[in-house]
């Protein structure tokens, strides 16, 4: 007899539908799995056999053939176990054939028959809903995450035995409820006001947060660049439901989530020894890179000049397109990668304060060149972080707004952008393409002249021109202005750094 059970395979961060077909017929006892399975999938045979027997169920002593369709796509990982077991149960008449109608199944088995959670439950649930399934059966540990997808009945099952009870209609699990990660305790959260001085970096980060722009902080070690950067998530607007789902889906697929809906934007700070693949994704079984894990959040590159040249080069395309494209042999994969880049570096290789600097011209040139060109052109704001003076360290109060107050301004600015950009695929000013930029960031006569002058004098590239306009748009949004005023453009130009600025000779 033949059974077919739909399940979902995780490819990158997206799930693709896979149908598990199980055929049971007379012959020498054997269990074959076909359809490009990897080692973990082939081992599923042993897990399925032991789990069935340990759950006091029958493992038919007949010829079993399982096919994972479409047969042309490589299957990896243990998430097919449950679908295979369910297929065997149906094909050997141990559960009613119609019990799995319009139902998808996903999960890993242990030998005892208990179900183990898998990666990418939300991704699978969203795909199941899109494919028109009504029910999704997952291990209990995945139920909360999968239930974040609405319009889908998610059933969390603890063991294979309980699955059989469920399919016979003798047991009904509690409907799984979505879990939301509690917003962190506001008292403990790092606050911008904790950081002394750093007015420039704080202002730059506020603008960046308001428009989703990329920032570079330049300053000596110990100035507090990392401290300021770590406080960026606290002033970013909380993710919308769609964004939160995206974040949760990606983190679930990477095995980082805790199954609850994310309420904060991610903050990823990879070490500078990271490989290009680690940064933008890759590997023989493609995994998302740091920029994808930072999707809708912040990618912080401390000591950015220490990153390998190939890693920084690899970042260029994702930063521009908002997605990372990985080409592996026959197929190509696309990961979402719309993150804010926050980079930090020292003013020169010796990293001493300006008066004690021991670098010569060549060292400094070489250092600057490592960042210059393609990467610096994609940075909208370059700000200076200075070591705080002793007086500021001991004085009470940072003299700046607390994070919630800054966040309010940021949220207000973002709301203006949402209204303006409603119906387009851009969520914030940094997302605007050339056409949207021209429509929404138009300049009045005198202001336009001023910008044109910068382009003609060669201090702005074509891409730089649009980026400055978007930045000026954000500055105006922060000030609550619908029109971009000369001062807004001036401030944008002051943060924007020309890619080939002459280096002091």
């Amino acid at each position, binding site marked *: 007899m033949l059974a077919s059970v739909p399940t979902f395979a995780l490819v990158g961060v997206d799930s693709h539908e896979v149908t598990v077909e199980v055929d049971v017929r007379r012959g020498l006892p054997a269990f074959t799995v076909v359809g490009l399975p990897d080692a973990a999938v082939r081992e599923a045979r042993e897990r399925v056999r032991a789990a069935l027997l340990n759950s006091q169920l029958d493992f038919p002593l007949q010829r079993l053939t399982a096919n994972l369709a479409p047969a042309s796509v490589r299957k990896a990982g243990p998430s097919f176990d449950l679908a295979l077991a369910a297929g065997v149960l149906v094909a050997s008449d141990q559960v009613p054939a119609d019990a799995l109608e319009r139902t998808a199944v996903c999960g890993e088995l242990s030998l005892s028959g208990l179900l183990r959670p898998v990666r990418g439950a939300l991704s699978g649930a969203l795909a199941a809903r899109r494919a028109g399934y009504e029910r999704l059966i997952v291990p209990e540990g995945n139920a909360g995450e999968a239930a974040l997808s609405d319009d889908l009945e998610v059933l969390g099952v603890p063991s294979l035995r309980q699955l059989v009870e469920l399919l016979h209609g003798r047991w009904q699990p509690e409907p799984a409820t979505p879990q939301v990660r509690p917003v962190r305790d506001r008292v403990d959260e790092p606050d911008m006001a904790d950081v002394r*001085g*750093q*007015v*420039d970096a*704080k*202002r730059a980060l506020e603008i960046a947060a308001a428009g989703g722009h990329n920032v*570079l902080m*330049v300053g000596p070690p110990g100035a507090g660049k990392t401290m300021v950067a770590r406080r960026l998530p606290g002033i970013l607007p909380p993710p919308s439901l769609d964004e939160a789902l995206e974040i949760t889906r990606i983190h679930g697929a990477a095995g980082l989530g805790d199954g609850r809906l994310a309420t904060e934007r991610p903050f990823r700070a990879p070490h500078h020894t990271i490989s290009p693949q680690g940064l933008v994704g890759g590997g023989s079984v493609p995994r998302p890179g740091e920029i994808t894990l930072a999707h809708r959040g912040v990618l912080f590159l401390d000591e950015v000049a220490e990153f390998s040249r190939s890693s920084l080069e690899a970042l260029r395309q994702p930063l521009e397109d908002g997605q990372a494209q990985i080409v592996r042999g026959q197929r190509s994969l696309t990961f979402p990668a719309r993150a804010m880049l926050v980079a930090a*570096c020292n*003013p020169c290789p010796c990293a001493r304060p*300006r*008066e004690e*600097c*021991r*670098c*010569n*011209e*060549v060292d*400094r*040139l070489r250092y*600057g060149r490592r*960042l*210059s060109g393609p990467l610096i052109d994609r940075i909208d704001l*370059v*700000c*200076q972080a*200075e070591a705080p003076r002793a007086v500021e360290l001991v004085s009470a109060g940072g003299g700046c707004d607390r994070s919630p107050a800054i966040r309010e301004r940021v949220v207000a600015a973002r709301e203006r952008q949402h209204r303006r950009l409603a119906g387009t695929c851009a969520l914030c000013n940094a997302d605007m393409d050339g056409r949207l930029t021209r429509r929404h960031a138009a300049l009045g006569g005198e202001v336009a002249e*001023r910008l044109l*002058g*910068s382009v003609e004098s060669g201090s702005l590239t074509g891409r730089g021109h649009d980026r400055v306009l978007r930045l000026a748009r954000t*500055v105006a949004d922060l000030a609550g202005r619908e029109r971009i005023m000369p*001062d807004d453009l*001036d*401030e944008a*130009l*002051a*943060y924007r*750094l*020309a890619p080939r*600025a*002459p*280096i*002091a*000779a």
Partner: protein
Amino acid sequence: MSAACDACLRRGFLVGHLASRIAGLLDSSRRRVPGLLSLGDERLVAAVAGDGAAEALAFLDGFDPAAARAQVRASGARALCRHDPAYPAQLEPLSDAPSVLFLAGEGDIREAVSLEPSVAIVGARRASDYGLEVTRELGRGLGAAGVTVVSGMALGIDAAAHRACLDGGGVPVAVLACGTDVVYPRTNRMLYERILERGVVLSELPPGQRPFRWSFPARNRIMAGLSQITVVVEAADPSGSLITGTFAGQLGRTVGAVPGQVTSRRAAGSNGLLKDGALFVTSPQDLLDELFGTESDRARTARSPSRPEPPADPVRALLLEAVEAGLGIEGICAHAGLPVHEARAGLSRLEAAGHVSRDALGVYRPRLAVADGRPAA
């Protein structure tokens, strides 16, 4: 074209031949060759050649002036010996004046250092922004006044002096510690080409010679010898630049120094010179006054080019003042009493007007004097 007599040419190539021997002798010190180069050919060989003496004497005997001249020509240089009338007379007081100078470049050495006054500007390779800025102002002012600027084409102050002199329209003279066809340091290749176009690159070492540690202090004596005034911008103590100043003093030439921070180690040498009575140099005008006298027409007409008109807006003037004082962005805000977003906007205007510029990492710096309407590089 000027020529060199066979004996002088032979001497020049002998020094090149013995260069690595001299280096072996002076390996551990940065001292100048004490009197070595004033020795006659045979005695020089005896003093430095050691077990290579026979070979060196054979080199002297087998010296082929025609082949040597061809080699010099092939390198794009020309040789000038001390018997030639074009040989700079001001080198004569040196006890160890080079017998022959190898010259390259379009500039005329006689015009550059004999007919026109010349000033040597020397200083640290690892110079501060302040040092570099003052150097540029000095070089530009001297260049614009038609005064030749002599320096060593090293990184830092030297290179900045050459560039500024070129920008000001002057004739730069680079004295190298290696052959005139060897670019050292290589980073200065562009600058080297520019100097060749308008100025003179010279050396006492024959073409193809790489630099040695001893050849740097050795060329310093030539720099000091060629110039009426030697200005030390930033020099630690001890340092090569200080040696140049000492040579100039021994020759009875004027030694000038630019005051530096008293807490800065790299200005210790130059500040020490000031303490000992060196000319206090704060602007090109100080040097022009010294060269031509305060009342001369030349000093007056050759005023150094000025900065653009200071901004009329008082707040922007405060901002500019803060940038000129070398303050960071926070200091700038505090000085002008502005919140950071207004300060940034104001700086942007100052940049557009040519008062300030930003370096590769966005740090604001004052923009230098503007010569014939063209902003400084």
